[in-house]
């Protein structure tokens, strides 16, 4: 019997990056985590674009998503830090301001919902660290991933730290711990905490690629052979955007990018198809070779 969570996939993962969804659905049951898919979640809605336009509407949609699981008493688990960030920030606002909560609940009343403040929210990495335990990953490793791996935590998984309540953004180590658990070697690199830059691309494309270039260059300088991420936005920037960045900077990075559940799945002996590696834009050959070498 595993622990059950309400799975909230968000927008980017089911539409553009289903490889991340596939990897989570195939890997987490191996760790005793079950997903309940019966909730009608919408966009969280996303912090970078919707909150700057209309905070009231942003809170209303977030409150609806939170209210959906309150009766079932399940914790919302999401593979997207944008979702966990929005829901936890909205929860923080609604739980600290009675007038605001009453106003938002007036809106929810029109669809027979109410926000009561009981919902819990965790990103899937937080589920892994706090509820499953990284030790458990070691017990399912069949083919160690003997690579030097650069951890990229991204912004919203950990910040604002007072609201997110997970690891300290400057001293986080769960991805490095996970890397060791699957038989890899974490690499220390400059710019580890730097933002991936994808969102900046909608207002300043040069700036967005500048940030990506800084990341790739730092990972390469430190001898990183792959990157591990926790966020679909970062994944898009580093996997899909890698070729475009390389072209602009006349560089050749060739750094495979893995979502953290894909890294676990590789070590657990799942296939490329189970983990959706066939849908990556940046080749994952180096990663597959490392796995095959440990067979």
């Amino acid at each position, binding site marked *: 019997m595993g622990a059950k969570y309400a799975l909230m996939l968000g927008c980017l993962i089911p539409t553009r990056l289903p490889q991340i969804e596939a990897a989570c659905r195939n890997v987490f049951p191996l760790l005793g985590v079950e997903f309940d898919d019966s909730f009608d979640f919408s*966009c969280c809605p*996303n912090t970078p674009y919707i909150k*700057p336009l209309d*905070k009231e509407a942003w809170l209303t949609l977030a409150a609806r998503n939170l209210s959906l699981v309150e009766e079932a008493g399940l914790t919302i688990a999401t593979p997207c830090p944008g979702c966990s960030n929005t829901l936890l920030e909205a929860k923080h606002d609604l739980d600290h301001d009675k007038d605001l909560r009453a106003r938002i609940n007036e809106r929810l009343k029109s669809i027979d919902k109410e926000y009561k403040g009981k919902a819990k929210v965790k990103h899937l990495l937080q589920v892994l660290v706090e509820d499953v335990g990284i030790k458990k990953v070691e017990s399912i490793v069949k083919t160690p991933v003997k690579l030097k791996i650069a951890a990229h935590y991204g912004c919203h998984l950990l910040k604002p730290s007072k609201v997110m309540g997970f690891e300290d953004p400057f001293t986080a180590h769960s991805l490095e711990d996970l890397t060791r658990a699957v038989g890899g070697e974490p690499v220390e690199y400059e710019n580890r*905490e730097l*933002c991936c830059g994808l969102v900046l691309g909608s*207002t300043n494309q040069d700036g967005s690629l500048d940030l990506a270039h800084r990341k790739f260059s730092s990972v390469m300088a430190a001898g990183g052979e792959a990157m591990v991420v926790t966020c679909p936005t970062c994944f898009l920037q580093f996997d899909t955007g890698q070729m475009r960045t390389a072209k602009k900077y006349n560089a050749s990075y060739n750094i495979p990018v893995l979502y953290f559940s894909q890294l676990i799945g590789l070590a657990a002996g799942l296939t490329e198809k189970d983990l959706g590696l066939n849908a990556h834009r940046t080749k994952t050959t180096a990663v597959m070779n490392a796995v095959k070498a440990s067979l």
Partner: protein
Amino acid sequence: MAKDAGTEGGLGQYSAELKALLDAEGMPFCYQCSRCTSACPSALATGTFNPRKIILEVLLGERPEMTPEDTVWMCVNCHCCEEACPKDVHVAGIMNALRNEAFKDGKAHKGYIANAGLLLSSGLVASPQGTDRVRGQVGLGKMHMPDIEQIRKMLEGTRLKAKGGGK
């Protein structure tokens, strides 16, 4: 001479709604140390976005009217500034308050409006078109689409619904 924040000029000249938002985000406590800008990835990458300067201009009442081209739209809400701020000023919250006000005046950046349009059309900020094929490639079936009528109903009368576009 700097005008006194919160009285005549300065914050006093802003709409009651914006002033309340700025107050709630702790703006009056800013003492211009610039740790926000030093920690900001958008400032690093563009050289033009400067949250410290924006806060100063707003405090002094010397900030020009917002436009869709304003640098404030380069804030990506990463919260790096807030981790760095010694006075607990919600820097990203201030950037959001300014943008909420600009959206009210029809001065939002088009990239943001595009996301709002997607949200109001499907309940997601991504187009569901063509997803079956991509999902099939990795062995997944059709995805769940949220109840868009419920979403529209509860957003009735919001600025987002009125000005966000979409179907």
